[in-house]
């Protein structure tokens, strides 16, 4: 498995985009920690990067990379290598290098300035979002035949999860404000990995405010270890299921 991934990895490193991404994250995180006297505030700014920039870069990069490695995939297809292995290697190479870029770019400053549970949660969430958006990117790429169309779909995907979904959720909350919505909204946030990641981080950063939430459901849920476990499991599912769907599709695809 890693034999192939190694070549994918090598290819990605050659393109230097990932190196630029690492440098960008490193610069931004470092300067955030240095400029903000309050490391708590720096973490909040990092949170925005993790919830917006990281998914955006990951999904676009992974999509472009998929189409760019078409030659490699084609070459591998005529070899005694299973399709599952080809796609998984591509995935491991892409998600792996993006995660590494994230862990280097954000991880080092966090370890220097904020080696706390909150910092670790930030790194965990960022890594999860990276591998989740890579999965989504692969699903989109395998489904869309054309590069332009694939990138468009990936962007739309990001736009939907990062922005549109929350708008719809807000609309829903206010439209049905007379109804007990707690469990519904909890379920709905699970349907968006970025939302779920956000709540996971809020548990670290805004615990004081979340505890003020009147709904007992949330207090019990968020306050317990089960809530954290639930979040982690759902995030993992968000990484696995699109990837699994992508592999299924890829195995039946004409190439």
């Amino acid at each position, binding site marked *: 498995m890693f*034999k*192939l991934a190694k*070549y994918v990895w090598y*290819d990605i490193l*050659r*393109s230097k985009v990932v190196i630029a991404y690492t440098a960008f994250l490193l610069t931004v995180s470092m300067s955030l920690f240095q400029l903000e006297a309050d490391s708590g505030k720096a973490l909040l700014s990092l949170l925005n990067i993790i919830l917006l920039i990281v998914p955006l870069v990951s999904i676009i990069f992974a999509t472009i990379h998929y189409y760019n*490695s*078409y*030659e*490699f995939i*084609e*070459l*591998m*297809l*005529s*070899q*005694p*290598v*299973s*399709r599952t292995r080809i796609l998984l290697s591509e995935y491991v190479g892409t998600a792996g290098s993006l995660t590494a870029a994230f862990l280097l770019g954000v991880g080092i400053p966090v370890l220097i300035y904020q080696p706390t549970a909150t910092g670790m949660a930030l790194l965990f969430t960022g890594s999860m979002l990276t591998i989740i958006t890579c999965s989504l990117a692969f699903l989109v790429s395998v489904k869309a035949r054309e590069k332009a169309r694939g990138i468009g779909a990936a962007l739309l995907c990001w736009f939907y999860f990062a922005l549109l979904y929350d708008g719809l959720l807000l609309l829903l909350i206010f439209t049905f404000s007379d109804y007990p919505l707690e469990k519904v909204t909890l379920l709905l946030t699970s349907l968006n990995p970025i939302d779920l990641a956000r709540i996971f981080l809020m548990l670290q950063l805004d615990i004081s405010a979340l505890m003020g939430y009147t709904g007992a459901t949330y207090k019990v849920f968020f306050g317990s270890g089960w809530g954290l476990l639930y979040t982690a499991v759902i995030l993992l599912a968000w990484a696995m299921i699109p990837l699994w769907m992508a592999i299924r599709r890829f*195995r*039946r*695809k*004409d*190439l």
Partner: protein
Amino acid sequence: MIRIEHLHKRFSKLAVLTDVSASFRAGQVIALIGPNGSGKTTLIKSILGMVKPSAGQIYFNDQPIGEQFEYRRQIGYMPQIGRYPDHMKISQVMAMMQNIRNQPAAAIDEDLYLAYDIAAIAHKPMHSLSGGTRQKISAILAFMFRPEVLILDEPTAGLDPLASEILRNKILVEKQRGRLILITSHILNDLDELATDILYLHEGQVKCYDTLPNILQQTGQAKLSKAIAALMQAQSHSPAKMQNGQCTTKTVSHV
């Protein structure tokens, strides 16, 4: 060695292959011939598992290929247009393929590598190569692992006469060794001395599959190119005549 049974392939509404059945044995050199868009490449890709049949089945050594991949260890494939990861050097591509096939160095066929003097340009990245040089690389890779089956899609297209000649000789050598060789080519003169059998495809259907001497005899021509021209003409003018004419529709005459 390879048996194709009632193979159908359609891309959305377009039928590319219709009820193709054929059987190939070791020692045969089969020339796949047909006008542009007759389904030659699709047939080849189906054998390689790159294109998934809409219906029908392909057997390799009596095993349905399905989602198998190990059988490709016995196939050397030279694509029509060889595409390789841009950033890799020739030497790296070679090393990678050997690494993936995991075959002992002693088993490597270096004839073409030496004949084309690739060592001199091995440090060049793939994206800097001319089309012809890429074809050479494709040819080297196809023969490198001494496969039982060679599938060559337009092998001489883009090669200069000298390189072409070298390749022809190599194919002849492999023919002597009793390999099963599938060739498509527009340059019919190339096939004259190579082919033992002709498989003529038209609009996705096998119109003619017979030994070369039989075909020459039936068409009353001395050269393959003339014979094929006659076949094509007959096909386009009066398919019915063809059906009943020189080349029988007994497509599995070699079973």
